[in-house]
């Protein structure tokens, strides 16, 4: 398992397209969203932790799409490359190799994500003179972003077993916008519920509350049953 983890990590992290696609989407984030300049006037409490929370919120709006899409071709790669015969003839178990592949590929695909996030945190800490922001960044990343990536990794590993990777990618992008970004006022959605993979429940709960003036993501989390009822009647429970 460790060998597979190591080599799958190495092969994925050296993949040029991984860095190119992340860079393109990251550029969109910088141009279209305030990732470079964080307006923190609406926040309470520690400015550093709020800044890291908002930075995470911006990153998780689009980068998980790249994450899922770049994972989608990995589960079937051994079969496509016809390496599976050699691998299956070794005494290493299939399950161990699958776990190693999942962990290695997911970790490698998260590296550009982490570089973008911690790069921003480092910049903030240096420019604003708030080294504590690095600690808040680590907490936010581990508690709020990583669980979402773990779920998306599992989805991106299971989905292409049922669908061709290209079809899965299209559906994955649709899922991301529907299930994580679209406001509940528009249509029944998983957005801003506990089922959303953006990690905002954790972020708002343990890192920083949402900005006072914010809409959409600022809606306070309710409960699983509330989320379920929201799916049935979108306009009702959404204002909880």
């Amino acid at each position, binding site marked *: 398992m460790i*060998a*597979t983890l190591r*080599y799958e990590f190495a*092969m994925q992290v*050296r*993949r040029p397209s991984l860095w190119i696609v992340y860079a393109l989407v990251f550029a969109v984030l910088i141009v279209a969203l305030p990732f470079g300049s964080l307006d923190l006037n609406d926040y309470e409490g520690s400015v550093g932790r709020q800044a890291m929370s908002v930075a995470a919120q911006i990153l998780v709006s689009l980068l998980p799409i790249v994450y899922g899409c770049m994972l989608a071709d990995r589960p079937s790669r*051994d079969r496509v*490359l*016809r*390496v*599976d*015969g*050699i*691998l*299956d*003839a*070794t*005494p*290493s178990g299939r399950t161990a*190799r699958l776990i190693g592949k999942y962990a290695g590929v997911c970790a490698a695909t998260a590296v550009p994500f982490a570089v973008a996030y911690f790069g921003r945190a480092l910049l903030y800490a240096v420019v604003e003179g708030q080294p504590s922001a690095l600690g808040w960044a680590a907490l936010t990343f581990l508690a709020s972003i990583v669980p979402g990536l773990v779920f998306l990794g599992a989805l991106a590993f299971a989905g292409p077993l049922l669908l061709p990777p290209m079809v899965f990618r299209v559906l994955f992008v649709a899922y991301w916008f529907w299930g994580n970004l679209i406001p509940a006022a528009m249509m029944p959605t998983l957005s801003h519920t506990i089922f959303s993979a953006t990690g905002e429940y954790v972020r708002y709960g343990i890192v920083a509350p949402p900005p006072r003036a914010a809409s959409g993501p600022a809606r306070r989390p309710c409960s699983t049953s509330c989320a379920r009822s929201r799916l049935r009647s979108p306009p009702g429970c959404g204002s909880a």
Partner: protein
Amino acid sequence: MRIDVSGLTKTYKGGARALDGLTLTVPTGMYGLLGSNGAGKTTFMRILAGLLRPTSGRVAIGGHDMATAEGRLAVQRTLGYLPQDLGVYPDLSARRFLDYIALLKGLHSRSARRRRIGELLEVVALSDVADRRLKGFSGGMLRRVGIAQALLADPRLLIVDEPTTGLDPEERIRFRTLLAQLAGDRTVLLSTHIVDDVAQTCRSLAVLAKGRLAFQGTVGDLVSHAYHRVWTVSTPGPAPVTGRVVSALPEGTGMRYRVVAAAPPDPRARPAEPTLEDGYLALMDG
């Protein structure tokens, strides 16, 4: 490492029967497995390597029952397998690819792994390009990487499926010589439809036809199937209509045909010494 197979049957989804009650014993040493395309050789090899489960029948390798997970694991610990459609990771170098496979085969000591990989790269004459990415390798070079990975854990059983397909003549000769040298006290099972590869390397062989055992014995036994059935015919006219034409060589104004047939195919036919290929064709033609 002896292989005992009895009543082996493999039926794929859709009803295609690749193996049909195959019973066979493979002794230690170099052993050839001949058969036309679709004869069931690859299915047989994949079952021996633990990649496929038979529909029925029994396979024991070195006393290990391949029907049990423990048996398959024990065999895979001593197995080197080179599949017909060999694939590699194009973004890894030959050395890194071999390192990965070595780890999967349980060679955990880094120094022992490095030493073994270095030795094998020498054996397959790839030391000079060991750190180049595999995507730049030719078919012959990839085959050599394939044989190197099969030998990593010093296997007692080596299964090679159509190893010389697509190689140029020089590579082919080098490859089969290497296999023959490796045999020694190992069991090397060479599956091929190239009769000459078996003729040059194996003493014993089996022939599969439509998933069944058509022949098992020595090379000499198979050649003897063609005794008094091989003829050469020199003629300016068309090829003989009876028997199977093995070769046709231009000769002066006519052609010289080599024919496998039960009776002289032409009044001008002369008897000829049979080869393994003649024996194989005589067997297949009944």
